[in-house]
């Protein structure tokens, strides 16, 4: 279900009304959120809900074993029952034989019952789940007898391996299989024919896998107590506002909010929640989706490029398309985060800030403190620091930075361009660190800061070129054209005009946010100014929003 669809608007109103009707009752509220989140996710594909359930049950159980060394019988029954019931509900039935139609307000549901439970794959998954549950329960007594250190280590490894296996299989199997095949062809002249599988990438798998992994790691590090209540934990893992594209929440921050009653939002919460939703929709529908037309038109010939394509002459047009993509990806992703945060706020939850004006960064460290903060802090806490961080020699620090960014790049997708992008980001971090450039340090002259921002924005855009390019040739043609053929055709100026037409208000708003040091400056403004900002945003949504209905870019990650 897309945040930008009417379906979501109806869904949100219904869930919100039911949620606040249940105010004062924690378990029913969490159950409602769990059901709503599964419905939200199942709208894409019901089968993949089972992956979320596997992650939930594995991490719920592992965390208990790590934290307490044991798991109560009732908790084991709940976890086992939840897993098996989910397999029966999400994987066994073939929902493609259910036909839901509506003509006007007349709804009809047709089910071919004979085929509903006929698919053998679903039953195989169910049988495997039964066997897994039996083994886990039969082996429980033996596992419980392990000493604490072994138990803790064993279960954290089990959790990490289980999560990474799911992620690795669904996201990276074909990538590594392709790469292996290419290597085998190059080295031995043999191309294996069996190597790829028809795997669909489940939406948001990287986001919820990282979120649930951070929970068990935090429990292992004794920074967080394991959740006793399966409902709370399952609702935390699948919380629909941030399920498919983040922010990647930490157990320490979000889980406690599921364990106690949320306060009924006061007027300021509702105002801020609504503003975040409207602002997020504005970024996505008005800016990102409209600029996508400029970007896609320019990139289209390169996306389908065949070997031997010639270098285009219009470097300026390509540069404008790069700037447009920088704005598009920012507005697409941060727009999603804003809607997620605004939606969560209406339910009384507080999600972490994921973006802090990233294009005002003066250097790569500053950029990663501002861009996709939930991922960069995750990589810092669970990868960079465990690798040694900056505690060793300079060389080791550079290695750690490069490795972290390389994996950060790979997190975005199974493609060599993402790996190169990660390597590029790592290289930038190392170079700036080696040169000792820190544009954010106090006392730095403002004009120098602005120059550094502008310069670093160009470097960021080169990164976005690597990120957006579908092949390595595109990168070289773009750089060649921009630096050696900086002509400006009429189309280039038209594209530039389009970029300013849609993005000028965002730019102005962000300059104000930056100058005031406040991400929500509206709160301090006179009501009349606020009214006019609202008018601009709402009128833009009603009249300038793109009707193309694009998915959010980060859904694919």
């Amino acid at each position, binding site marked *: 279900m897309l945040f930008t669809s009417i379906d979501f608007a109806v869904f949100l109103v219904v869930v919100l009304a039911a949620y606040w009707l249940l105010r004062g009752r924690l378990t029913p509220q969490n159950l409602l959120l769990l059901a709503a989140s599964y419905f939200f996710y199942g709208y894409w594909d019901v089968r993949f809900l089972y992956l979320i359930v596997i992650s939930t049950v594995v991490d719920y159980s592992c965390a208990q074993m790590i934290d307490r060394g044991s798991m109560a019988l009732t908790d084991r029954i709940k976890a086992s029952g939840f897993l098996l019931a989910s397999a029966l509900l999400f994987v066994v039935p073939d929902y493609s034989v259910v036909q839901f139609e509506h003509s006007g307000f007349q709804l009809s549901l047709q089910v071919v019952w004979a085929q509903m439970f006929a698919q053998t794959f679903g039953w195989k998954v169910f049988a495997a789940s039964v066997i897994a549950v039996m083994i886990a329960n039969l082996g429980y007594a033996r596992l419980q007898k392990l000493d604490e250190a072994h138990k803790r280590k064993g279960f954290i490894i089990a959790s990490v391996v289980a999560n990474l296996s799911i992620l690795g299989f669904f996201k990276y199997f074909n990538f590594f299989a392709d790469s292996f095949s290419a290597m085998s062809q190059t080295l031995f002249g043999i191309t294996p024919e069996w190597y790829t599988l028809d795997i669909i990438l489940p939406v948001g798998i990287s986001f919820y896998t990282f979120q649930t992994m951070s929970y068990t790691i935090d429990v292992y590090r004794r920074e967080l107590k394991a959740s006793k209540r399966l409902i709370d934990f399952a609702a935390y893992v699948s919380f629909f506002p941030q399920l498919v594209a983040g922010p990647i929440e930490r157990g320490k921050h979000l889980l406690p909010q599921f364990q106690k009653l949320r306060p009924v939002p006061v007027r300021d919460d509702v105002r801020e929640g609504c503003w975040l939703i409207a602002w997020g929709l504005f970024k996505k529908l008005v800016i990102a989706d409209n600029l996508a037309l400029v970007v896609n038109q320019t990139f289209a010939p390169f996306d389908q490029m065949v070997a031997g394509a010639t270098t285009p002459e219009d470097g300026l047009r390509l540069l404008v398309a790069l700037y447009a993509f920088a704005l598009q990806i920012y507005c697409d992703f941060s727009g999603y985060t804003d809607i997620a945060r605004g939606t969560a706020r209406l339910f009384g939850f507080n999600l972490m800030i994921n973006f802090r004006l990233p294009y005002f960064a003066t250097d790569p460290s500053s950029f990663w403190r501002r861009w996709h903060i939930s991922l960069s802090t995750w990589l810092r806490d669970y990868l960079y620091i465990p690798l040694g961080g900056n505690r060793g020699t300079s060389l080791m620090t550079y290695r750690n930075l490069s490795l972290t960014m390389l994996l950060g790049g790979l997190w975005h997708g199974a493609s060599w361009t993402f790996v190169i992008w990660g390597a590029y980001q790592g290289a930038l971090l190392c170079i700036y660190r080696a040169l000792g450039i820190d544009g954010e340090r106090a006392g730095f002259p403002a004009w120098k800061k602005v120059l550094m921002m502008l310069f670093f924005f160009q470097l960021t855009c080169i990164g976005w070129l690597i990120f957006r390019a579908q092949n390595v040739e595109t990168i070289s043609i773009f750089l060649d054209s921009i630096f050696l053929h900086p002509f400006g055709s009429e189309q280039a100026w038209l594209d530039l005009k389009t970029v300013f037409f849609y993005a000028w208000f965002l730019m102005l708003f962000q300059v104000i946010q930056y100058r005031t040091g406040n991400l929500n400056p509206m709160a301090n403004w006179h009501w009349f100014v606020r*009214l*006019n900002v609202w008018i601009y945003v709402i*009128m833009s949504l009603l*009249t300038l929003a793109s009707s193309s209905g694009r998915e959010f870019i980060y859904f694919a990650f």
Partner: protein
Amino acid sequence: MLLVFMALWICFAGEMFLRAFDPQPMLPRYVQAGDFGIRVNMPNQVYVHKTPEYRVEIRTNNRGMRANVDYTYEKPAGVKRVVVLGDSFGMGYGVKLEDTFTEQMRRKLESSLGKKVEIINLSVSGYGTAEELLMLQHEGVRYHPDLVLLAWHATDPDDNLRSGLFAVEHGKLVRRNATYLPGVKIREYLFSFAIYRWLAGNSHFYNWLRDFAGSKIKQVMATMKRTKVDSASNDSVSSKEGPDYSLSIALLDAVKLETEKAGAKLLLLEIPVRVSRTEYLPCMPEEIRRRFDVVSPIKVFQQHAGSLLYWEKSHGHFTPLGCEIVAGSLAEAATKMLATQSGNSEGI
């Protein structure tokens, strides 16, 4: 007091926003209640349609047709008459009178037939087939047409359902509501005020709000009608294309019957749905194509891929070039039909 100020300010700021960022097409509709229960164009009016792409003067004659001259019911000797039934496309929104496809077709017909041709354009913006049938029965046949040209638009099936003027019961077309005058009384009342006429012709915010609200209301009404029709579909005739088209097809049958009774021939024009400058889609169900003489300019439109055939910043009517192509396709078919017609329908 504060709320009133805020409401006024929202209107003002909305107007400023639209003028700066999204100028609206201003296409006021000068219609009134006709004698036979449906809206008709106000006679003897001169008004202007303005959009970011064009500015066109609309002038109606003494019977509300978009024309510079008045026509009598009696057909002059030696004249071929073409009665045009349609909506805003038929009326020629978006182009000057001389550029409308009907006028361009007239000139081509006169040249190919070697006879004077008169266009009796009875199109009214917003019409569906149901209103076009009534217009033909009450007005069109009185002009003794040689050819009836009906412009079929993708919105017609929904318009036919929404109007509630006709229904299909036990396989037969029956009259339901005596009138269908959506907002006409209010419009007539409002148009009596100079300030409203000014708003309709000059305010971007008013025009945007009216179109926005109108489209939403239309969607809801069409959905409700479809629900009703589906509920009663057990005893209605269902064509292969579904219940929506069965009413439209029955209406077209009735148009054909009226046309033949008047000794004329019926020609349908399919107005293609524009997807982009290079892609146009048909909007007519196959059954209609099979049973009626249909002219579709899609193939010629595709030969002109990339050209501006529909306006893009208004309600998407034909440009002069689009009209020229349509007129060419129509004239070819109409020439054949009129040339083979018997002489007894010649002018009195």
